[in-house]
């Protein structure tokens, strides 16, 4: 049982309240969002009167009823809260209804009359490119001369890779409860990863100031990036209904609505060319990244930037050129999801490495190792950041040994030689993932630590708990800081009233940033207490006077380390502090040092540090059905000194499987009208218990504490996601085996059963 056990109890008894579980305030109304069924259309007219007249219906709102700005774009103000003259995607919010029951909301929705005039819609990247429908100006990033490098290289490959969208499928759908207060005050209980932005946007649509909106977040039933900006939407809609009716309102999207209305991981289309020598050493790579941003910007540009910054993954590419465009389509605005552009870019560079190996008839691991970042000058990325002491080669060797990589590859080859309908494939892929927001100002966090006179501690920070174990880690940090048992520390719900102007809990940086802010607040308090303690000791024990530097917080007591026996229990000491008029509240702040990123030039040090992780996956492929099963997975993860190894393991396993889902079974499809077809678990397949590999080893590489973070830890949330690519390339290896690894299979992402069968078919015409 780890330190989080205290909170864990609530989760297993059902007491842990998510927004929809909170006791409902009296006079609560239910809210429903009425959305467009058209991907692109002009709203000719609408009539809300019949709906408004229904008994039990408290409000029916259109964009005309918004008291503030009709805007909820998080970075670029290009996203309407409710559609005005035009709808730009199917699932776009057009009207809002609040009524006594959900049933009445639905009845009211049926009474709404809208006349749409359909307009041509752009539903694919190809159509967007054809129509030059860009969301913003394209960007380039380069180092060296890719053109010349490609020309000079002994070998060249090129191709196009498509990667699919992915639905977050947080188990708890988007939900918000708003309670109006006095005057214009509004309390917003939201399942959001970014309470401060939710506050700002809710204030914006209501036309009030931020100090009149309090956003509170106890916990999220999963976020994965899907609640970084898009929880704002549900919060804004709920707040509008609550303002209009003067009553508490709750909106909970049901699963189908959630899937239809919210954005996904960006689809990418990536053109690539690579030049290399006959040992497989990369000379030059050129990428053309195209992403489907959907109908509005959301975080698309930041996501594309992270993709560009991960186009190298773990490899030194002396000449690199990346051109990137974000395209505008008539689909819900795509958004953050675990990895944030990194997975798409890594899928591309890993495809290149994989192809080089096949092209030269070498083992892919050998080719990868040859290209890893190592010592200078081969340790500087294409954007100028030095990769300090990359552990890549040593990790690869260690993982290859512990997983019997070479033996199993030979065994797979033997297996493939004597089976007609089955093939095995194995792949080892690395991940080097940069930690920090590339939007530099976001790398800050605040905290407020309160000690009560009975010696209990309440910690407030700006991060949100969504299953990543943030609060357990914060609790551990605070417990260690005060030398108290974890049970004496309570981590409060995140609230904009206690910590203002916070950054989203995203970019894997939640515990790095908030942990440091909490630690700084604790240091302030300890300093204050240490200065007041000598007087307490003098009164109690007499003798020579203690000095503040000798005061230590240990084992639930405060003591003078030079004077044995000179010790007071923490709780008693706090009563004394209160009597002696010492302030027991302190705020803490942290901003990541030593980072600097020149966006315009595409050069600098955007990341505080890198996380390294690697996986070997082995799959068994059924050539008749296209079904691929994971047989064994071995992961070696370099995560600094772990604060909570149990939590980190869970993040690694979970992230990996989510990555496997994106790479294999999770396929998003729209019909020709731009309406989502895969809007329920019937048709959208996320990994289940049956997809967990029967042999699944996770090893945390110890002994490399990370300088500059709390307790030498490293961020954990996102990097393991991209290990799913090992399963994807293992499938490709198995497909490739059917043609003796001599031909390059067609292979995009996701590798669904259908895609696998098609790939097999093309590889062996006449099969």
């Amino acid at each position, binding site marked *: 049982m780890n330190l989080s056990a205290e909170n*864990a109890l609530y989760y297993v008894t059902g007491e842990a309240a998510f927004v929809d579980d909170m006791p409902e305030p009296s006079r609560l109304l239910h809210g429903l969002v009425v959305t467009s069924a058209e991907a692109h259309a002009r709203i000719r007219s609408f009539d809300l009167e019949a709906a408004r007249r229904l008994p039990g219906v408290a409000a029916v709102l259109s964009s005309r009823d918004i008291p503030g700005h009709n805007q909820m774009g998080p970075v670029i103000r290009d996203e309407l809260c409710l559609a005005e003259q035009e709808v730009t995607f199917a699932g776009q919010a057009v009207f809002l209804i609040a009524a006594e029951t959900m049933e009445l909301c639905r009845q009211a929705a049926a009474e709404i009359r809208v006349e749409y005039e359909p307009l041509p819609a752009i539903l694919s990247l190809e159509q967007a490119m054809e129509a030059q429908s860009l969301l913003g100006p394209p960007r380039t990033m380069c180092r060296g001369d890719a053109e010349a490098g490609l020309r000079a290289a002994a070998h060249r490959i090129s191709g196009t890779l498509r990667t699919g969208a992915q639905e977050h499928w947080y*188990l708890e759908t988007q939900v918000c409860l708003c309670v109006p207060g006095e005057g214009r005050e509004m309390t917003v209980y939201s399942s959001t990863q970014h309470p401060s932005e939710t506050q700002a946007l809710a204030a914006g649509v209501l036309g009030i100031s931020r100090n009149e909106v309090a956003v509170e977040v106890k916990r999220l039933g999963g976020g994965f990036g899907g609640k970084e900006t898009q929880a704002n939407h549900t919060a804004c809609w709920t707040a509008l209904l609550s303002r209009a009716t003067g009553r508490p309102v709750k909106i909970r999207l049901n699963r189908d609505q959630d899937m239809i209305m919210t954005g996904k991981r960006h689809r990418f289309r990536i053109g690539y060319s690579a030049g290399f020598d006959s040992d497989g050493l990369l000379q030059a790579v050129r990428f053309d990244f195209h992403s489907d941003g959907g109908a509005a910007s959301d975080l698309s540009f930041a996501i594309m930037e992270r993709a560009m910054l991960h186009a190298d993954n773990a490899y030194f590419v002396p000449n690199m050129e990346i051109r990137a465009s974000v395209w505008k389509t008539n689909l819900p605005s795509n958004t953050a999801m675990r990895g944030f552009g990194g997975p798409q870019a890594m899928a591309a560079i890993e495809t290149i490495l994989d192809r080089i190996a096949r092209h030269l008839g070498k083992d892919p691991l050998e080719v990868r190792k040859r290209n890893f970042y190592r010592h200078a000058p081969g340790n500087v990325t294409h954007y100028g950041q030095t990769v300090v002491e990359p552990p890549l080669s040593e990790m690869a060797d260690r993982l290859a040994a512990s997983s019997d990589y070479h033996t199993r590859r030979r065994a797979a080859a033997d297996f493939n030689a004597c089976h007609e309908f089955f093939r095995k494939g194995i792949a080892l892929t690395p991940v080097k993932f940069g930690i920090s927001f590339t939007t530099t100002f976001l790398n800050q966090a605040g905290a407020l630590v309160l000690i009560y006179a009975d010696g209990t501690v309440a910690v407030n920070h700006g991060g949100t708990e969504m*299953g990543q*174990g943030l609060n357990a880690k914060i609790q551990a940090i605070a417990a260690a800081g005060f030398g108290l048992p974890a049970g004496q520390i309570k981590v409060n719900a995140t609230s904009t009233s206690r910590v203002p102007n916070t950054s989203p809990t995203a970019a894997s940086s939640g515990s790095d940033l908030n942990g440091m802010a909490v630690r700084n607040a604790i240091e302030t308090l300890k300093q204050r207490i240490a200065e007041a303690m000598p007087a307490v000791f003098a009164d109690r024990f007499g003798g020579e006077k203690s000095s503040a530097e000798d005061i230590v917080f240990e084992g639930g007591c405060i003591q003078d380390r030079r004077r044995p026996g000179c010790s007071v229990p923490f709780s008693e000491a706090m009563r004394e502090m209160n009597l002696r008029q010492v302030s027991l509240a302190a705020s803490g702040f942290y901003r990541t040092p030593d980072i600097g990123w020149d966006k315009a030039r595409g050069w600098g040090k955007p990341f505080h540090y890198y996380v390294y992780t690697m996986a070997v996956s082995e799959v068994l492929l059924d050539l008749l059905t296209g079904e691929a099963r994971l047989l064994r997975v071995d992961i070696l993860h370099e995560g600094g000194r772990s604060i909570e190894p149990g939590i980190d393991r869970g993040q690694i*396993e979970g992230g990996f499987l*989510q990555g496997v889902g994106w790479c294999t079974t999770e396929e998003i499809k729209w019909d020709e009208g731009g309406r989502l077809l895969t809007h329920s678990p*019937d048709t959208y397949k996320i990994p289940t218990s049956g997809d967990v590999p*029967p042999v699944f080893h996770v090893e945390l590489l110890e002994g490399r504490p990370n300088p500059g973070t709390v307790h030498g830890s490293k961020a954990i949330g996102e990097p393991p996601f991209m290990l799913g690519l090992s399963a994807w390339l293992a499938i490709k290896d198995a497909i490739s085996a059917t043609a003796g690894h001599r031909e390059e299979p067609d292979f995009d992402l996701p590798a669904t059963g259908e895609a696998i069968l098609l790939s097999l078919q093309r590889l062996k015409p006449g099969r």
Partner: protein
Amino acid sequence: MSKEPENNCAGGPHGLSRRGFISSVSAGAAASTALREANAASFQVIEAVGTVLPIQLKINGITRKIQVEPRWSLLFVIREVLGLTGTKIGCERGECGACTVLIDGKPRYACMTLAVEAQGQEITTLEGLMDGENLGPVQQAFVEEDAFQCGFCTPGQIMAVEGLLRRNASPTMEEVRVGLSGNLCRCAAYQHIFSAATRAAERKKKGGMA
């Protein structure tokens, strides 16, 4: 992908399908026994909105008299009428398992069960697994094995494990996987959930509880 939800019963405990049941309700019958015999032709559930029936549900050992609309799911009644919010809403279409409860000891999707169907049966929710003030063995095992991340699927997972262990006290790993195949966990804490199931089985045996 193996996803044949074990604990889903499309036909309901009495082999009465939801759709069939709703259409019989629309005939206007007032008691559930009569309902089943009612021979309805039309499908007019909208008209039935607002019609309430008095029923008795035995939940966590306590019999409760409540008024329900015939179309209300057991999930809705458990959460909204009885306020037992340990049972979660994930999809409301019998796919995710977040709403899993035990009906006569067997795991069932509460979203796919009508409240009126559950009359006369023992319903157990997460709240009913407590052993007085203490955690039940499955709950305890989930804590010890860190068997969750965001915790939203957890109540359903715990109920699925409880149901599995009630019919199979010593499941093999394969049986655990299959037993939990109707419960999605997007955080993919599966590995830890499997360990919790194994640990819970041991705990139950030691505690003499089958």
